[in-house]
Protein backbone atom coordinates (compact mmCIF):
# COMPACT_ATOMS: atom_id res chain seq x y z
CA UNK A 1 0.00 0.00 0.00
CA UNK A 2 2.83 2.40 0.76
CA UNK A 3 4.18 1.75 -2.73
CA UNK A 4 0.81 2.84 -4.15
CA UNK A 5 0.90 6.01 -2.05
CA UNK A 6 4.42 6.77 -3.26
CA UNK A 7 3.29 6.29 -6.87
CA UNK A 8 0.28 8.55 -6.33
CA UNK A 9 2.46 11.21 -4.72
CA UNK A 10 4.92 11.14 -7.61
CA UNK A 11 2.11 11.46 -10.16
CA UNK A 12 0.58 14.35 -8.21
CA UNK A 13 3.96 16.07 -8.06
CA UNK A 14 4.38 15.81 -11.82
CA UNK A 15 0.85 17.12 -12.35
CA UNK A 16 1.45 20.08 -10.03
CA UNK A 17 4.71 20.98 -11.76
CA UNK A 18 3.10 20.81 -15.20
CA UNK A 19 0.15 22.94 -14.04
CA UNK A 20 2.59 25.46 -12.60
CA UNK A 21 4.41 25.50 -15.94
CA UNK A 22 1.13 26.37 -17.64
CA UNK A 23 0.52 29.16 -15.11
CA UNK A 24 3.94 30.64 -15.83
CA UNK A 25 3.87 30.05 -19.57
CA UNK A 26 0.17 30.53 -20.44
CA UNK A 27 -0.30 32.98 -23.30
CA UNK A 28 -3.53 34.51 -21.98
CA UNK A 29 -4.77 35.13 -18.47
CA UNK A 30 -7.56 32.59 -19.01
CA UNK A 31 -4.90 29.91 -19.48
CA UNK A 32 -3.24 31.00 -16.27
CA UNK A 33 -6.54 30.82 -14.40
CA UNK A 34 -7.18 27.30 -15.68
CA UNK A 35 -3.66 26.29 -14.71
CA UNK A 36 -4.04 27.68 -11.20
CA UNK A 37 -7.37 25.88 -10.92
CA UNK A 38 -5.68 22.58 -11.77
CA UNK A 39 -2.90 23.42 -9.32
CA UNK A 40 -5.42 24.02 -6.53
CA UNK A 41 -7.30 20.79 -7.32
CA UNK A 42 -3.99 18.94 -7.23
CA UNK A 43 -3.28 20.55 -3.85
CA UNK A 44 -6.60 19.25 -2.49
CA UNK A 45 -5.71 15.78 -3.75
CA UNK A 46 -2.26 16.06 -2.14
CA UNK A 47 -3.82 16.96 1.21
CA UNK A 48 -6.07 13.91 0.99
CA UNK A 49 -3.21 11.66 -0.04
CA UNK A 50 -1.10 12.90 2.85
CA UNK A 51 -3.91 12.05 5.28
CA UNK A 52 -4.15 8.53 3.86
CA UNK A 53 -0.38 8.15 4.11
CA UNK A 54 -0.04 9.27 7.72
CA UNK A 55 -3.41 8.11 9.03
CA UNK A 56 -4.67 11.30 10.66
CA UNK A 57 -7.75 13.43 9.92
CA UNK A 58 -6.56 16.84 11.07
CA UNK A 59 -6.47 18.48 7.64
CA UNK A 60 -9.97 17.53 6.51
CA UNK A 61 -11.17 21.10 7.37
CA UNK A 62 -8.46 22.38 5.05
CA UNK A 63 -9.94 20.24 2.26
CA UNK A 64 -13.41 21.62 3.03
CA UNK A 65 -12.24 25.23 2.93
CA UNK A 66 -10.22 24.73 -0.25
CA UNK A 67 -13.16 23.07 -2.00
CA UNK A 68 -15.51 25.85 -0.89
CA UNK A 69 -13.27 28.78 -1.82
CA UNK A 70 -11.71 27.41 -5.01
CA UNK A 71 -14.16 29.33 -7.14
CA UNK A 72 -13.54 32.76 -5.62
CA UNK A 73 -10.26 33.55 -7.32
CA UNK A 74 -11.37 31.97 -10.58
CA UNK A 75 -14.64 33.90 -10.72
CA UNK A 76 -12.96 37.15 -9.71
CA UNK A 77 -10.32 36.89 -12.43
CA UNK A 78 -12.89 35.78 -15.03
CA UNK A 79 -15.12 38.75 -14.21
CA UNK A 80 -12.15 41.08 -14.20
CA UNK A 81 -10.72 39.95 -17.50
CA UNK A 82 -13.94 39.80 -19.49
CA UNK A 83 -14.98 43.41 -19.64
CA UNK A 84 -11.70 45.18 -20.53
CA UNK A 85 -10.94 42.56 -23.18
CA UNK A 86 -14.42 42.93 -24.70
CA UNK A 87 -14.11 46.70 -24.69
CA UNK A 88 -10.71 46.53 -26.32
CA UNK A 89 -12.04 44.23 -29.06
CA UNK A 90 -15.00 46.50 -29.60
CA UNK A 91 -12.78 49.55 -29.80
CA UNK A 92 -10.58 47.86 -32.33
CA UNK A 93 -13.59 46.82 -34.40
CA UNK A 94 -15.36 50.16 -34.59
CA UNK A 95 -12.50 52.57 -34.12
CA UNK A 96 -14.24 54.67 -31.48
CA UNK A 97 -14.17 54.09 -27.77
CA UNK A 98 -17.32 56.01 -26.92
CA UNK A 99 -19.70 54.17 -29.25
CA UNK A 100 -20.68 51.57 -26.65
CA UNK A 101 -22.43 53.00 -23.60
CA UNK A 102 -21.93 51.34 -20.26
CA UNK A 103 -25.55 50.29 -19.93
CA UNK A 104 -25.36 47.64 -22.63
CA UNK A 105 -22.16 46.24 -21.20
CA UNK A 106 -23.84 45.67 -17.86
CA UNK A 107 -27.10 44.48 -19.35
CA UNK A 108 -25.31 41.40 -20.72
CA UNK A 109 -24.85 39.99 -17.30
Amino acid at each position, binding site marked *: *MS*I*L*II*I*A*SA*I*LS*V*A*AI*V*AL*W*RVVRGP*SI*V*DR*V*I*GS*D*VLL*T*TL*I*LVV*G*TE*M*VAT*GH*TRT*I*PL*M*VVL*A*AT*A*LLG*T*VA*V*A*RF*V*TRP*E*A*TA*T*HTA*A*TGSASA*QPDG*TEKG*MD
Partner: protein
Amino acid sequence: MVDAEPWASILDIVAGVLLVGGALLSLAAAVGLVRFPDALSRLHAATKPQILGLVLVVVALALSQRSWAALLLLTPVIVLQMLTAPISAHMVGRAGYRTGDFDPSTLVVDELAADVADAGRSDLPGSSDPTDRATGRAPRSDASGEPSGEA
Protein backbone atom coordinates in the same frame (compact mmCIF):
# COMPACT_ATOMS: atom_id res chain seq x y z
CA MET B 1 -11.52 -9.70 15.34
CA VAL B 2 -9.86 -12.58 13.58
CA ASP B 3 -11.46 -11.60 10.29
CA ALA B 4 -10.74 -7.89 10.72
CA GLU B 5 -7.10 -8.07 9.67
CA PRO B 6 -7.50 -9.35 6.06
CA TRP B 7 -10.40 -6.93 5.48
CA ALA B 8 -8.25 -4.08 6.73
CA SER B 9 -5.41 -4.90 4.38
CA ILE B 10 -7.82 -5.31 1.45
CA LEU B 11 -9.43 -1.94 2.20
CA ASP B 12 -6.00 -0.33 2.44
CA ILE B 13 -5.01 -1.74 -0.94
CA VAL B 14 -8.29 -0.51 -2.45
CA ALA B 15 -7.63 2.93 -0.95
CA GLY B 16 -4.17 2.97 -2.52
CA VAL B 17 -5.54 2.02 -5.92
CA LEU B 18 -8.16 4.78 -5.67
CA LEU B 19 -5.43 7.26 -4.75
CA VAL B 20 -3.44 6.30 -7.83
CA GLY B 21 -6.60 6.69 -9.93
CA GLY B 22 -7.23 10.19 -8.62
CA ALA B 23 -3.60 11.12 -9.19
CA LEU B 24 -3.79 9.80 -12.75
CA LEU B 25 -6.82 12.01 -13.42
CA SER B 26 -4.86 15.00 -12.15
CA LEU B 27 -1.97 14.02 -14.42
CA ALA B 28 -4.43 13.76 -17.33
CA ALA B 29 -5.55 17.32 -16.63
CA ALA B 30 -1.93 18.46 -16.58
CA VAL B 31 -1.19 16.72 -19.88
CA GLY B 32 -4.30 18.33 -21.35
CA LEU B 33 -3.09 21.71 -20.15
CA VAL B 34 0.12 21.25 -22.09
CA ARG B 35 -1.10 19.52 -25.22
CA PHE B 36 -4.42 21.21 -26.00
CA PRO B 37 -4.26 24.25 -28.27
CA ASP B 38 -6.59 26.87 -26.73
CA ALA B 39 -8.17 27.88 -23.46
CA LEU B 40 -11.56 26.22 -23.94
CA SER B 41 -9.97 22.86 -24.79
CA ARG B 42 -7.72 23.17 -21.76
CA LEU B 43 -10.77 23.93 -19.64
CA HIS B 44 -12.31 20.68 -20.83
CA ALA B 45 -9.27 18.76 -19.64
CA ALA B 46 -8.89 20.73 -16.42
CA THR B 47 -12.35 19.91 -15.08
CA LYS B 48 -11.71 16.16 -14.97
CA PRO B 49 -9.93 15.88 -11.59
CA GLN B 50 -12.13 18.51 -9.96
CA ILE B 51 -15.00 16.09 -9.36
CA LEU B 52 -13.99 12.53 -10.21
CA GLY B 53 -10.43 12.79 -8.93
CA LEU B 54 -11.60 14.38 -5.71
CA VAL B 55 -14.29 11.73 -5.25
CA LEU B 56 -11.70 8.98 -5.70
CA VAL B 57 -9.30 10.51 -3.15
CA VAL B 58 -12.09 11.19 -0.64
CA VAL B 59 -13.37 7.61 -0.94
CA ALA B 60 -9.81 6.38 -0.46
CA LEU B 61 -9.52 8.51 2.65
CA ALA B 62 -12.82 7.23 4.00
CA LEU B 63 -11.74 3.63 3.32
CA SER B 64 -8.46 4.15 5.13
CA GLN B 65 -10.03 5.89 8.13
CA ARG B 66 -13.12 3.63 8.45
CA SER B 67 -14.96 5.92 10.88
CA TRP B 68 -18.31 7.66 10.64
CA ALA B 69 -16.84 10.94 11.90
CA ALA B 70 -14.38 11.06 9.02
CA LEU B 71 -17.17 10.28 6.54
CA LEU B 72 -19.31 13.03 8.04
CA LEU B 73 -16.44 15.50 7.64
CA LEU B 74 -15.60 14.37 4.12
CA THR B 75 -19.10 14.68 2.69
CA PRO B 76 -19.04 18.53 2.61
CA VAL B 77 -15.84 18.39 0.53
CA ILE B 78 -17.63 16.57 -2.28
CA VAL B 79 -20.82 18.62 -1.95
CA LEU B 80 -19.03 21.98 -1.95
CA GLN B 81 -16.83 21.01 -4.88
CA MET B 82 -19.88 19.82 -6.84
CA LEU B 83 -21.57 23.16 -6.13
CA THR B 84 -18.66 25.42 -6.99
CA ALA B 85 -16.84 23.64 -9.82
CA PRO B 86 -19.59 24.27 -12.45
CA ILE B 87 -19.70 27.96 -11.49
CA SER B 88 -16.00 28.50 -11.96
CA ALA B 89 -15.97 26.44 -15.15
CA HIS B 90 -18.86 28.51 -16.51
CA MET B 91 -17.15 31.78 -15.69
CA VAL B 92 -13.84 30.70 -17.19
CA GLY B 93 -15.59 29.37 -20.28
CA ARG B 94 -17.45 32.65 -20.73
CA ALA B 95 -14.23 34.61 -20.34
CA GLY B 96 -12.53 32.32 -22.84
CA TYR B 97 -15.35 32.79 -25.34
CA ARG B 98 -15.44 36.55 -24.95
CA THR B 99 -11.73 36.99 -25.32
CA GLY B 100 -11.89 34.89 -28.49
CA ASP B 101 -9.34 32.45 -27.15
CA PHE B 102 -10.43 29.56 -29.37
CA ASP B 103 -10.35 28.51 -33.00
CA PRO B 104 -13.83 29.01 -34.52
CA SER B 105 -13.10 26.60 -37.37
CA THR B 106 -12.94 23.70 -34.90
CA LEU B 107 -16.48 24.28 -33.63
CA VAL B 108 -19.26 22.02 -34.89
CA VAL B 109 -21.95 24.53 -33.92
CA ASP B 110 -21.73 27.91 -32.20
CA GLU B 111 -25.20 28.54 -30.84
CA LEU B 112 -24.09 31.50 -28.78
CA ALA B 113 -23.05 33.41 -31.90
CA ALA B 114 -26.68 33.68 -33.04
CA ASP B 115 -27.76 35.07 -29.69
CA VAL B 116 -24.84 37.48 -29.70
CA ALA B 117 -25.87 38.68 -33.15
CA ASP B 118 -29.48 39.02 -31.97
CA ALA B 119 -28.45 41.11 -29.04
CA GLY B 120 -26.51 43.44 -31.31
CA ARG B 121 -23.25 42.89 -29.54
CA SER B 122 -20.59 43.78 -32.03
CA ASP B 123 -17.84 43.43 -29.44
CA LEU B 124 -18.07 39.66 -29.01
CA PRO B 125 -16.70 36.92 -31.27
CA GLY B 126 -19.21 35.34 -33.62
CA SER B 127 -21.03 38.57 -34.41
CA SER B 128 -18.98 39.16 -37.54
CA ASP B 129 -20.66 36.26 -39.35
CA PRO B 130 -24.43 36.64 -38.92
CA THR B 131 -26.41 33.42 -39.04
CA ASP B 132 -29.94 32.76 -40.26
CA ARG B 133 -31.55 34.00 -37.08
CA ALA B 134 -29.98 37.40 -37.50
CA THR B 135 -30.77 38.01 -41.17
CA GLY B 136 -33.60 40.39 -41.95
CA ARG B 137 -33.66 41.83 -38.47
CA ALA B 138 -32.55 45.08 -37.02
CA PRO B 139 -30.45 43.71 -34.20
CA ARG B 140 -30.55 46.67 -31.87
CA SER B 141 -34.34 47.09 -31.92
CA ASP B 142 -34.95 43.37 -31.57
CA ALA B 143 -32.79 43.11 -28.52
CA SER B 144 -35.10 45.32 -26.49
CA GLY B 145 -38.33 43.59 -27.52
CA GLU B 146 -37.57 39.92 -27.09
CA PRO B 147 -35.79 38.16 -24.29
CA SER B 148 -32.56 36.65 -25.53
CA GLY B 149 -31.25 33.33 -24.38
CA GLU B 150 -28.56 34.69 -22.10
CA ALA B 151 -30.44 36.50 -19.40
